[in-house]
């Protein structure tokens, strides 16, 4: 009996350890978050097929901590003329007419006690896809990276594969060239890249 109890005990313990590490990990709790947005906006159409640059809408990404979600005005730049009768666009026209903001649902969120600055990363050549994945292939945006501390630190300790020429940052199709490691060394010197790995780098 003690043997059987011990055996079951080990199984239960292993199960608990597995359960906590697997289901408690941000890879389970956060990756795959794909909320329904107030309108059926397709990044695949706009950023993929039309090939529009991320910064057309996310204007502040190079100069501030936040990439910023565009105001309805940005949608209406084109949609005053483009598909003005579309039913899908009704909430956008409503928002425009009533001067009320569209309530987009935030997808990517790091904890409030961690600091993240988009501009610091963009201006040093970390591409959008490193954290957000292939947005240009997503009909509805989904979180594809855990955005956990361990995941951040992986890159802060060894950013080499994520550093690009500055004009390629928003290129969704960029692939690291064969001499990427050499280029990365050069980028790190040129751009003074020395990612913090101490606590206060992000927790201030």
């Amino acid at each position: 009996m003690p043997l059987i109890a011990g055996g079951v005990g080990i199984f239960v313990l292993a199960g608990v350890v597995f359960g906590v590490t697997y289901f408690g990990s941000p890879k389970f709790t956060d990756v795959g978050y794909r909320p329904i947005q107030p309108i059926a906006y397709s990044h695949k159409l706009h950023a993929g097929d039309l090939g529009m640059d991320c910064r057309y809408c996310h204007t502040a990404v190079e100069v501030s901590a936040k990439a910023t979600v565009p105001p309805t005005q940005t949608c209406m730049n084109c949609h005053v003329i483009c598909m003005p009768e579309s039913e899908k666009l009704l909430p956008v026209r409503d928002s425009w007419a009533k001067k009320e903001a569209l309530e987009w649902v935030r997808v990517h969120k790091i904890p409030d006690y961690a600091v993240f600055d988009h501009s610091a990363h963009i201006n040093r050549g970390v591409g959008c896809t490193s954290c957000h994945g292939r947005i240009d292939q997503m009909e509805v945006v989904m979180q594809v990276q855990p955005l956990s501390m361990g995941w951040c630190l992986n890159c802060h300790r060894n950013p080499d594969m994520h550093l690009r020429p500055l004009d390629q940052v928003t290129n969704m199709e960029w692939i690291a060239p064969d001499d990427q490691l050499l280029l990365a060394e050069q980028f790190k010197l040129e751009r003074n890249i020395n990612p913090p790995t101490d606590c206060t780098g992000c927790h201030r």
Partner: protein
Amino acid sequence: MIFNLFNNWISPKTMSIVPLLLAVMAMGCQGKPFEKPPIHPNPNMDTQNRYNPQSSSDFFADGMTMRMPVPGTVAQGELNENSAYYRGVDDQGNFVTDNSVELTDELLLRGQARYNIYCSPCHSRVGDGKGIITQYKYPIPPTSFHSDIVRQMDDGYFFSVITNGVRNMPSYKHQIPVDDRWAIVAYVRALQHSQNASLSDIPVAARQELSR
């Protein structure tokens, strides 16, 4: 004998963990798409009682955290007295003829990058007005920069159009800062030259290269 042992081992009690296992399996694998907000087993202080940029507010009547400037006020440093620079017109209200910013290689490259982001979807990368949207449901053809009328426009006019919009073109002053607008104006001029140059525009030294 062995079967007996097996039967005994999976006792009804042990079988009671089967629903538990099924429940765990029903939670799915890592990375499976889901729509409800993420639930963190240990919430820590992940979501604090504070306003983040662009978040909603139940304090202000319009529901927005970010506030507009009080009407009739001007923020420090935003008086924008320099009319030629900020509006592209001189004190008499005429469009300025020259770019308000010093022309450099850097400025042109900046203009090119900004043009490709904000202007090329409609005007195309070469400025002929055949941008990608003309292949979609956009019925009105954007203006080409390569007509005599557009070539004769003042730099201040281009700046004013980017700032305030014209006809079907919206204002881009919210998306493009003043400096970048002037950079784009410079680049549009470069685009115009690229499709309307004569031999005399080329430095004598470089002509040799061409005639070879």
